């Protein structure tokens, strides 16, 4: 990790959040995003051809980066147990297939997932703080988060209040993130749960807003910034993720701290996943090509990765009959 930049730079950032006015001045002082340029850059990075051994590596890396997600009203403990088993051993016929990074569930199912995963190394992520709408009083959001942490969640995915953000009440959003981060601490000590902050970029309207939200969340201490809950269309797109990657890159230059990025929703094929990996490598560099710093929030993506993996290993096309129905 590179050394901290000049103390002046970090000093500037700590002043930024002193009041609503300074925060707004800072966020609106960020350079605007060139929409056409960002989309063209994302599209051109998507044309890279990744084949043979590089493709095999990309597939295994992508599997290790998957947050295997189920966020349905109809989720049952049985479904979560099945999903957790799949996360630990995605391809039961192939012991060389790596495990996924985490299982992502609603807070009430954290205990079930935790029990099934044990000490396998696969984390439990919980969406807390009134995901997907994010419209609840702060104390409810905090209680939701504390419950999930107490049940053993390793990671908390919260969503910002887009209404407050779009109205310009940036300090309110900032303070909510800070408070939820506080709720991620474990009462008895120990490693606090990692906090991922969801922007729901499909509702933020502009890339400028995505950039502002990224900085806001990073200033508030997010470990990860995440595009979407998966409940709103459009969810993750390449240009949105590009803007967020640029933000974490600039944030590291300013403060020396790394923040992770998680596109979620709408990433269904291996080809899509590889495009994201290419973009990570080109925009922020290989430091981020690790499950600690880049994740995919996905459910169906894993099956396609497994089918492609089997195609590379056996030389013949696989089919949906040979992977689980989630």
């Amino acid at each position, binding site marked *: 990790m590179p050394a901290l930049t000049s103390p002046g730079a970090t000093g500037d950032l700590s002043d930024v959040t002193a009041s609503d006015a300074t925060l707004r001045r800072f966020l609106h002082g960020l350079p605007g995003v060139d929409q056409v340029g960002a989309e063209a850059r994302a599209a051109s990075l998507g044309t890279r051809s990744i084949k043979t051994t590089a493709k095999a590596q990309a597939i295994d890396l992508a599997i290790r980066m998957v947050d295997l997600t189920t966020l349905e009203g109809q989720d049952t403990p049985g479904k979560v147990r099945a999903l957790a088993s799949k996360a630990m051993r995605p391809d039961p016929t192939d012991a060389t297939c790596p495990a996924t990074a985490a299982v992502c569930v609603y807070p009430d199912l954290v205990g079930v997932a935790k029990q099934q995963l044990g000490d396998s190394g696969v984390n439990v992520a919980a969406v807390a703080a009134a995901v997907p709408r994010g419209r609840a009083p702060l104390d409810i959001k905090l209680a939701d988060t504390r419950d999930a942490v107490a049940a053993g969640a390793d990671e908390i995915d919260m969503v910002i209040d887009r209404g407050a953000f779009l109205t310009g009440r940036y300090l309110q959003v900032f303070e909510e993130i800070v408070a939820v981060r506080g709720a991620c601490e474990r009462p008895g000590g120990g490693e606090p749960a990692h906090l991922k902050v969801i922007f729901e970029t499909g509702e933020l309207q502009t890339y400028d807003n995505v950039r502002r939200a990224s900085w806001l969340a990073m200033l508030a201490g997010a470990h990860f910034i995440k595009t979407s809950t998966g409940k709103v269309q459009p969810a993750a797109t390449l240009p949105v993720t590009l803007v967020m990657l640029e933000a974490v890159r600039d944030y590291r230059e300013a403060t020396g701290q790394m923040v992770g990025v998680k596109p979620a929703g709408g990433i269904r094929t291996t080809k899509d996943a590889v495009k994201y990996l290419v973009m990570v490598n080109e925009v922020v560099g290989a430091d981020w090509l690790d499950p600690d710093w880049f994740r995919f929030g996905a459910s169906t993506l894993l099956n396609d990765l497994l089918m492609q993996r089997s195609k590379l290993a056996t030389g013949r096309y696989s*089919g949906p009959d040979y992977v689980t129905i989630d």
Partner: protein
Amino acid sequence: MAAPRIDVRKTYKLYIGGAFPRSESGYSYTALDAKGRFVANAALASRKDARDAVVAARKAFGGWSGRTAYNRAQILYRVAEVLEDRRPQFALAVQQSEGLTPARANAVVDAAVDRLVWYAGWADKLTQVVGNANPVAGPFFNLSTPEPTGVVAVLAPQGSSLLGLVSVLAPVIVTGNTVVLVSSYARPLPAVNLAEVLATSDVPGGVVNILTGDAATVAPWLAAHLDVNAIDLAGVAGDTELATSLEVAAADNLKRVRRAPATEPDWAAAPDLTAMTDFVEIKTVWHPMGV
């Protein structure tokens, strides 16, 4: 004096999932008529086109197999109607591809239309013929019915480019299967025209996917594909070596295989039911009486 008109030199495309994409490979090849003159360019399908076609066929399977047999009959009959409407186009394509006289080519189109109508009629009758209410030693209704096999890869005959094509395609889709079809390599034109007919006659996209190109390069991928449930090897008739290797590849996931004949059969002969029954599974249901 008017300038001489410039020929429109056509480059046809594939038919996958109800759309007409170019080959993913970007390649095309020249289709010649029976006398060796240029007719049109056809897309040269690659293994990735075959893969995309299988995905499209799988996606279409639930909807197509779930339709009533009566509805499938109506749609097949509609295909025959549209083909009949386009008679001059098909007669010309057959004439060019197979080197027939106009009268013979017209007779081939007639036979193809009749063949479609014949199979359309079977849609809601096959179950009566090959299904059964079985007598069993217990208080049960025991019913056997034919169910479609799934995604079927069809290698169309190399010689008979329209009648042969229709004779291998219609019996597979009439029972509710979906198809990835590889056309005759040297005579792709009738298959391309048939794709245009299918696209405009109520056949849902993905039920029939037509790849023009070389069976020798595409078929091994289809034969080995784990999401293909059956394969008809009519198009490699006479090529024992290739046919055997395809059968071996198909054995991996226990595909149903319709074996390649030693020589291409006479497609004008009256068909029998095996063309349909080769690609159905018999499902037997036990149901208690009096409940």
